[in-house]
């Protein structure tokens, strides 16, 4: 199945794209997706920063199981204001 992944700020710069579509296995969790992305994009592998995860614009935990066409975002520490 395919999921849509959005990257912002430093992650967008590291990946070189704001949005990608990726094929993942049924039952794939957010954590597994992040690990797969770290393999696809070695520049993400060095990330030691705390991450939050969002699926379809709501925060979820890392064990959240993805569904077809989910919109996933990885949220580095925010700094609005």
């Amino acid at each position: 199945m395919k999921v849509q992944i959005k990257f912002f700020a430093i992650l967008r710069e590291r990946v070189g794209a704001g949005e990608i579509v990726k094929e993942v296995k049924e039952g794939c969790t957010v954590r597994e997706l992040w690990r797969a992305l770290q393999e696809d994009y070695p520049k993400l592998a060095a990330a030691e920063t705390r991450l939050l995860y969002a699926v379809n614009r709501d925060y979820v935990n890392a064990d959240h199981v993805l569904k077809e066409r989910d919109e996933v975002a990885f949220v580095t520490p925010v700094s609005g204001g």
Partner: protein
Amino acid sequence: MFRVVREPIDPQELVRYVTDPEAGAIVTFIGTTRNNNEGRKVIALDYEAYPEMAEKELARLGAEAKAKWNIRRMAIVHRIGPVQITEPSVIIAVSAAHRDDAFQACRFAIEEIKKSVPIWKKEVFEGGEVWIGTQSGQPLAKF
């Protein structure tokens, strides 16, 4: 009114929006770009957002504020893109029957924005640029 916008924010528009005949107080907070941070000479702040989720999160914290305090109306507008020195990056306006509720709800809103709303600032300073990743304005942890 919970928005993420690219253009300059007009404080008066938010004040008008929260104006309410049953309100005895309107509190506003304006976050502005400061010309220095941790010894660096700041030229501008460049904000980026996950706009759809940021607006949703702003609305969610507005609802939370309304559940916690006796407020009438709330407006939060955050600007993205480059924000020059002295310009507002975020404006919050809250009206309430009494000032204490308005002050507390406004304080809550800005603190929550800095914790959970998916907006990031890149500090452009003399000699470089850096993504800010903590509430105290320090660069993002090692990457």
